[in-house]
């Protein structure tokens, strides 16, 4: 009985940490796809960029962990902003096929750049000493870094939710997701809004890629390798929402760890089956609206 409880807690714990990383990377994708209807398959490349930048700063320049994370997120946001202004924005009105072609082209370039600069091997993340090892809560010991992931993730989710619900910017984003034309008519500068949300989403992805390098291995094929999971989070959660992807990431993260731990002979099969079932039951995702 103790063993069963032990593995249940362990699955929940690791699943939660995985879910936080998935959420951080995917939430920006959900918002940008909901806002602009843009199929951005290259979203994972921003996460990879953030991860690479943070790890290089820490391992080569001995930068402290929090500062490296901050710079990685800012760099990711800046990269997103530049690419959105110069390239993405040209394809907003274009067909899905062109957007797929364009974003896969970006993935190819990002992959080549990563392989060229950092080599084909995955880059290890060395958390600072105060986040290594385990810490004791009296009744149980928990791995410190995973605990940090869960708490940091929870804090960010709260911040994001408050930002979207309580600020003027958040209200504009919600308005534009609901009805872009109407938002434009009442004087919201949607083009600037797109750029800002794109940058924010890229920054969050970069942060997720950096803190999650421990869980989602950081190698040149990152963007393509994990794309299916990011897309599942977005599609199951529902486009243009921040609550939906959170629930979806929680479900996917814990189910993935759980099934791989309990039924390794089936691999990721159940995850895909669950996704299929959810999307057939609710084609627009758990929290998406028909549009």
């Amino acid at each position, binding site marked *: 009985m103790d063993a069963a409880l032990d593995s249940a807690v362990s699955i929940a714990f690791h699943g939660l940490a995985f879910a936080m990383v998935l959420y951080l990377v995917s939430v920006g994708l959900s918002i940008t796809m909901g806002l602009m209807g843009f199929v951005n398959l290259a979203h994972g490349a921003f996460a990879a960029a953030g991860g690479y930048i943070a790890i290089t700063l820490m391992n080569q320049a001995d930068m402290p962990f929090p500062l490296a994370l901050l710079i990685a997120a800012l760099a990711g946001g800046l990269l997103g902003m530049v690419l959105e202004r110069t390239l993405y924005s040209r394809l907003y009105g274009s067909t899905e096929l062109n957007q797929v*072609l364009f974003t896969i082209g970006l993935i190819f*370039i990002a992959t080549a750049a990563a392989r060229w600069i950092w080599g084909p091997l995955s880059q290890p993340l060395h958390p600072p000493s105060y986040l290594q090892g385990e810490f004791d809560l009296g009744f149980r010991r928990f791995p410190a870094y995973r605990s940090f992931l869960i708490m940091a993730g929870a804090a960010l989710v709260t911040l994001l939710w408050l930002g979207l619900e309580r600020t003027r910017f958040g209200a504009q984003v919600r308005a534009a997701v609901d009805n872009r034309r109407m938002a434009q008519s009442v004087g919201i500068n949607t083009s600037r809004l797109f750029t800002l949300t794109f940058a924010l989403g890229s920054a969050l992805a970069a942060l997720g890629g950096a803190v999650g390098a421990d869980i989602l291995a950081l190698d040149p094929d990152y963007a393509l390798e994990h794309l299916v999971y990011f897309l599942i989070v977005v599609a199951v959660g529902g486009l243009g929402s921040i609550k939906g992807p959170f629930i979806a990431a929680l479900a996917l993260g814990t189910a993935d760890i759980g099934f791989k731990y309990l039924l390794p002979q089936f*691999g990721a099969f159940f995850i895909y089956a669950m996704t299929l079932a959810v999307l057939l039951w609710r084609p627009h995702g758990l929290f998406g609206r028909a549009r």
Partner: protein
Amino acid sequence: MTTLADGFPAAIAELSRRHRLRLSEMLPWIIAVACFFVFPEYLALGTQILISTLFALSLDLILGYGGVVTLGQAAFFGVGAYTAGILAVYGWTEPLSGLVAAGAVAGALGVVTGLILLRTEGLTLLMLTLVVAAMIGEAANKAGEWTGGADGLQGMTIAPILGLFRFDLYGRTSYLYALVVLFLAWLLVRAIVHSPFGRSLTGIRECVARMHAIGSPVLRRLVTAYAIAGALSGIAGALLAQTEQFVSLEVLSFARSGAVVIMLILGGAGRLYGAFVGVPLYMLAQDQLAEQFPIYWSTGIGLLLIAVALGARGGVLDLWDALLSRVRGHRRQ
């Protein structure tokens, strides 16, 4: 007597001519046959190109004409490859019946999944195609007893085609075999897209609401097209299994589903010839770049894709049309 045609003779004539075989349509086949004689040392790559062209051509039917954006077409390719491969491993060595079996199994999969998936649209549909392919890939990975799992399916023997043409070391038989199958598939797809059925597919792509309004059985049309495309993709996969005499899990991968979509859009989707332009362009560029720049070759491909996405919204064939019409315009002046 006046008919409707009197008003629009040019338009009607144009419409009634569009299915006729033009001389320029023979160009790909002349090039393919010429390559057989001119580049005997590249026949392995050539066979790969022919097989991928067939795969992209089948995708064109559902994506280019039907307007179904799928990121899971490799499911059919892979199922076809494993069907042909497993038959060959267990002693069914006759290749042509292997192709037919692969097409039948992949087509049946198309009917079953199509009936479920094609009720949705947009991102949901794209995700469902992707997830179904991922499920089949994971199943093949775990069913190692049948598929060989991560080690790949090995140990097939393929009998000579029609009992006459043995698969040789230089890949001559493989190349011609793939070429003949591709030609027959092209005749079929060409007939389909010019048929009333094909025209109704285009109608569904352009405006599904109107097709519903005029009473067209949209779901049935789409499922039929999905199954035919699936069967042809399965045949392409079977060709790969038989000519390589090896099947790896890569045939079911997301990368393969993505690559075929890219190659088709690169050439031009919904044009029947997009596959014949995009696939050789992509695969030759990849082959050459990978040889010259083993580390960062994919930058070149990436730039090519971005340039086409931004510059030529209907693929390379679209650029060609624009060029052609400009030249003709000049002449007229």
